[in-house]
């Protein structure tokens, strides 16, 4: 079994290596001059056309004039030192920009994961407990409907109804700029107030999945032989639900929490842009608009590695929870 977990680590290492290599190769594999092709789009936006100076920088940054293996080693070396390059647009090291934006995205994604998992599991278990009764049927219908709507569409309607229409929430941003907060609490409230809509959008779109999983998982567990054993022992209902049923039903849900981070990140990028939330998603869009390639690549790398890390954590947690895997 030791061997198996070592294999997993090697697999992850290979995946990370493939991603880094992909990141390295991509700008080099695109036929023609990648920095010219894009330069003519979106005439409305300012600073779109790369100046000769900028193109020169990009060429040097990617080292396109050097032999490819040399470029590769230089690239890897820089990466190991934490150097993700230098942003043309922000005139700042990419790593610094990313670090300043990352907390917002992480905050949003984690809040959405926690909320959707909690709510989804609880409702799913309620549904499973009342299986085939009207509670279950109506919850099921409601949930599969919402599980299919992409988060940014939910975000858009929330934004226009609750923020633009009713004025209950701020239209954009994560904090009120230039505000003078009376206390730490009002600052925290300000952050929460800004985060409510984007987090809700992500949570709703993610809720259906956890609900279905929770319901399925709980239904399966409720039909297991060991649950009948537990009833026969004359244990109390709460003990049966929490100790016998839930502990088993949670196993697939926990794994899914981590695995789903990957798909949530995609949604988060879009939702951030809906609400102009200052995370990596808006940064990515801005960088795409101004062709700030080092930033785009940097974000991609960071996000991917974080998602991989989450997957790795999922393995670890699952092992802790399920004695069948660990031994």
């Amino acid at each position, binding site marked *: 079994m030791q061997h198996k977990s070592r294999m997993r680590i090697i697999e992850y290492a290979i995946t990370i290596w493939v991603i880094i290599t992909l990141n390295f190769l991509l700008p080099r594999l*695109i036929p023609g001059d990648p920095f010219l092709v894009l330069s003519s*789009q*979106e005439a409305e936006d300012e600073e779109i056309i790369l100046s000769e100076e900028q193109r020169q920088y990009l060429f040097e940054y990617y080292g396109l004039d050097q032999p490819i293996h040399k470029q590769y080693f230089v690239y890897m070396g820089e990466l190991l030192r934490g150097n993700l390059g230098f942003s043309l647009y922000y005139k700042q090291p990419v790593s610094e920009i990313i670090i300043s934006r990352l907390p917002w995205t992480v905050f949003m994604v984690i809040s959405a994961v926690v909320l959707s998992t909690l709510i989804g599991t609880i409702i799913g278990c309620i549904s499973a407990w009342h299986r085939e009764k009207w509670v279950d049927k109506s919850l099921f*219908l409601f949930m599969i409907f919402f599980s*299919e709507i992409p988060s940014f*569409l939910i975000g*858009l309607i929330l934004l226009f109804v609750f923020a633009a229409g009713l004025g209950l929430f701020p239209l954009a941003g994560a904090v009120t700029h230039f505000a003078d907060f009376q206390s730490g609490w009002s600052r925290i409230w300000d952050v929460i107030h800004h985060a409510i809509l984007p987090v809700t959008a992500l949570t709703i779109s993610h809720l259906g999945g956890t609900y279905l999983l929770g319901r399925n998982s709980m239904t399966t567990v409720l039909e297991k032989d060991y649950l009948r054993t537990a009833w026969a022992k004359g244990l109390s209902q709460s003990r049966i639900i929490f100790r016998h049923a839930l502990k088993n039903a949670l196993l697939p849900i926990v794994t899914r929490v981590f695995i789903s981070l990957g798909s949530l990140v*995609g949604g988060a990028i879009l939702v951030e842009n809906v609400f102009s939330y200052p995370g990596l998603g808006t940064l990515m869009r801005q960088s*795409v608009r101004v062709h700030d390639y080092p930033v785009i690549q940097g974000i991609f790398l960071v*996000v991917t590695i974080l998602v991989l890390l989450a997957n790795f954590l999922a393995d670890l947690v699952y092992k802790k929870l399920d004695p069948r895997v660990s031994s």
Partner: protein
Amino acid sequence: MAINAHLINISKKIGVLSDPKNLTAKAKGHCQKIAATIKSFTLLGKFGLTVVTFFVLLAVFAPLITVHPYDLPSGPPLMAPGEGHLLGTDDLGIDIWAQLCRGAKISIIVGLGTALLAGLGGGLIGIISGYVGGILDKIIMRLIDIMLVIPDFPVMILLAAFLGPSLTNIIIVLALFSWVSSARIARSQILMLKEKTYIKSAVLYGAGTWYLMRKHFLPEIFPLIAVQMIRLTGRAIISEAGLSFLGLGDPTSKSWGLTIHYATSFKGIYYTDFWKWWLFYPWLFLMLMVVSLAFISRDLERIADPRLRKK
């Protein structure tokens, strides 16, 4: 002699195929099958089918049912829905209804294009991987594992940024990140089928690869891949809308996502009522399309997968 017999055989087959009676009978059988499938849909599935049919009709007959061009101004800017412009106009005075009909077409092209490319391509990769096995299978499995953990949307942005915004590029990018599911399904089916006694006995009788594919593997795998392709269509439409929303779509395509992009990029959109038509209708169309496709595929999955059928 053998060749002669073979030729006769082939000509017989052609005869069978071209026999009009046979063809209609076959078509009739298929129609009945389809009708039976639709009948076993849930209410949501039927709803989805209706909506999707509506959008397909919209896309096909777009030039006939729209009065105004979709790419040129035809009225005053930012006109509310009303006479002449069913759903109003945008900031350039382009008719929204015309844009949305055009958008339906784009969505369907992107969705179907991606689904065909990813579904068939992925299916083929899966079949080869499962059938050939060995080192090739191992490599493909590793590749699939890697693809599974990479968050797809950021990669799509990256690729789209590098490749440049065109409809073809978007389809290629989407397909690149959607083939994995079909490949896994096809591969696991092949592996499962390979263990079946009837395949083993067919091999004992001397069946070749081509025969096995035609008679056993493809008929089992195709329905599953087809269902998966509907799911892929929905996902491709969402992803295209997302990319377009971020400004990475084909600027000439007028897809629903792009309309939303232009609407949300408009400076005064939050403080006026324009969003009630300019943003709302593409939003509604997109949502209906995506949800409907999901309902259809949910029902088809239930029908195609006998394990789920019981539930």
